[in-house]
């Protein structure tokens, strides 16, 4: 049976944290993340019949969201620099650790797997499906990210 609209709505709302953190990880902007999420919700409802297996619904939903985030980025064609990383509303910089900011400064292909793996508890296999890369590539990126963070945090601690 197809996923019903009601069930899709429940899935979206139960995944809201994951959706927000993933969109924020990609777009580095709360406003942009909100736009991407809103578009993704519209597209998910319009494409509900494209979901072949209900058990893959969350992966399907997240892929729609990620494609929307990447589309937004391409349209806007901008480079996120440290200066433009927006801080979470009502949360000054000092409330977040150096680890948080170091992750924020990673490039996309490292930052996104890190967020999915360490924050959202996705397995490497699930991340591979979402990003449409191999599991080996996911592991490689996670290790590269750890190596980079270890270098940066060592410097900061000094």
């Amino acid at each position, binding site marked *: *049976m*197809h996923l*019903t*609209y*009601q069930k899709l*709505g429940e899935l*979206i*709302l139960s995944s*809201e*944290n994951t*959706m*927000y*953190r993933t969109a*924020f990880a990609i777009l580095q902007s*709360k406003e942009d*993340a*909100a736009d991407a*999420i*809103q578009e993704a*919700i*519209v597209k998910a*409802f*319009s*494409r*509900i*019949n494209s979901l*072949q297996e209900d058990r893959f619904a969350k992966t399907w939903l997240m892929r729609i969201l990620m494609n929307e985030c990447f589309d937004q980025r391409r349209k806007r064609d901008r480079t996120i620099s440290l200066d433009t990383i927006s801080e*979470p*509303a009502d*949360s000054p910089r000092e409330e*977040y*650790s150096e*680890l*948080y900011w170091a*992750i924020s400064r990673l490039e996309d292909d490292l930052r996104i797997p*890190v*967020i999915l793996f*360490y*924050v959202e508890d996705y*397995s490497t*296999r699930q991340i591979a499906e979402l990003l449409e*890369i*191999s599991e*080996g*590539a996911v*592991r*490689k990126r996670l*290790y*590269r990210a*750890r*190596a*980079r*963070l270890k*270098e940066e*945090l060592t410097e900061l601690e000094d």
Partner: protein
Amino acid sequence: MKMEDIKKEYPSIPDDIHQMMEAETDKQIKLAEKRSSESAGRVRKASGRTSGSFRKKRWTPWRIAAAVLIGVLATGTVAYAGTRLYQLRLEKQGNYGLDMELVAEETADQEAASTASDPSQASAAETAEAAKGENNEAAGAQEAAETISDQPEAQTDRKVTLPDTLEQTQIVFGYIPEGMEQSSLYQLASSDGRALSVISFLYDEGDPDQVMHLTNVIESETFESAAKAAVYTKLSDGRYDQRAYLFFADQFRVLMLMAKDLSKEDVIRTAAALSLEGTGENIETADFRTWSDEIRDENRMIAYETPSYLDAMATRYASMPEGKVHQIGESFPMLTSATINGEFTETDALLYRVDQAEVFSDISVLDPAYLSSDKEISDFAREDGTLLPAELHFYSRGDGINCTMEEVYQTSVDTKLLYVTLTLENTGDADMENVLLYGDIRPYLSRNGFDQIDGTSLTEEAATYLNGIAYKGEDLYQGDFDLIRTQFNGHWGPGCPLQYYDFSSIAVGDGTNHIPLIPAGESVTVHLGYLVSDDMLPYIYLDLGSWEYPLQNGIDLRQ
């Protein structure tokens, strides 16, 4: 601080975004339910559609069906008085491709009549009069259709501009297969798993590329229905492998019906008995997905399956550094990512050498501590440690036009454990940290100069070490488009990696491929494990490249 600590402080969704999501989700549910009476149309953005210019296309019709319509719209925005002729053009492409297009054409008389009259003044009487003439017009229009079909280059005005509003319609299932029931406004279901869904699109013809390129069609036929034109298709794969398209052109609708596990007879009977009833309310056409939208998206998807794309892939492999083949005991450098002097870089100072490749019928040589947490021993070995047999399937992958993906051979095979001992030597003068180890086994099958690696086509230049092999004397190659993929117990490949990394020589190892440190001038030895089909052992190579760049270096492990 550990990486896992980040979870505690990563921000949760802000309240305003949470509220936005709730509101948008609620809105979309309501909109979807409203559209459900339109049989699940899809939302499109109100970006404003404009009709494109007409571009003539040469046709060599394989089968043509003509339909005649006395066109009267249900709204007052535009009205036609006269004959509108439709042709459903179907053109076969290759063995499994089918191009489908519904073309609306007007005769010169009707064109003059429609431009002379003031559409907004069209009266109910004129409408009724036009409708009465339908039967009388049918014969003449049929003749005209045949004439037009013989003259594919005859002029046409193909533009049908959607009005801003249309009458809302709902689906009526005039026939429901036995044992099924209507589970929603647009779906039928049964307890035995049969399912049928109907999707609606607004029918527009503004785009000159209004040809739906269907692929993997193994059967098709037109049939009579309440719609002006209807066609049934059966696809080669997919759960919903039967489709029917119904063109309710007079109501500006195209219905696409998808069915799972129904008989062909039931699919056609259900489709033939579908009708649309007006609800008396109007819809804004800007909110709905059009047939043009669907064609554009579907046609874009099949671009990835065309021979030209796969030729490009083959060219890509050919243009990369020529694949090298090494033998057991031979040391060779391979570009590797590592952290050196605090910088993440790539180095060719790491030498690789396969010392041994042993074959075992049981798992006694494995240390479970180094097995990936994703693997369960019971999945591949009995309690006494002997290996379980596996199912090996061979699929010919098609392009959907000349050939479809299909299983060409299946066999149950004995499984062997391929236990590989690999040594990595740091020949540089600096320590290497965070080295990641890759390796996968691949079969090489070759025929007629095209070398294939588990479904990837290569040119001869890129694959210099392949032999022409037929698997057990079976001809595995069918059709014009030969790409063989093997599936080992559901895993694509001749076997599957165990994700087994035994780094006991350096007292590290957590079942991952991460090597924390290879000091300058020193070596690390690792044992890798792969489950392989016994039958494929004579064809196995170890590929140490990553998925992105396969065939950088292969080691001949053929046994």
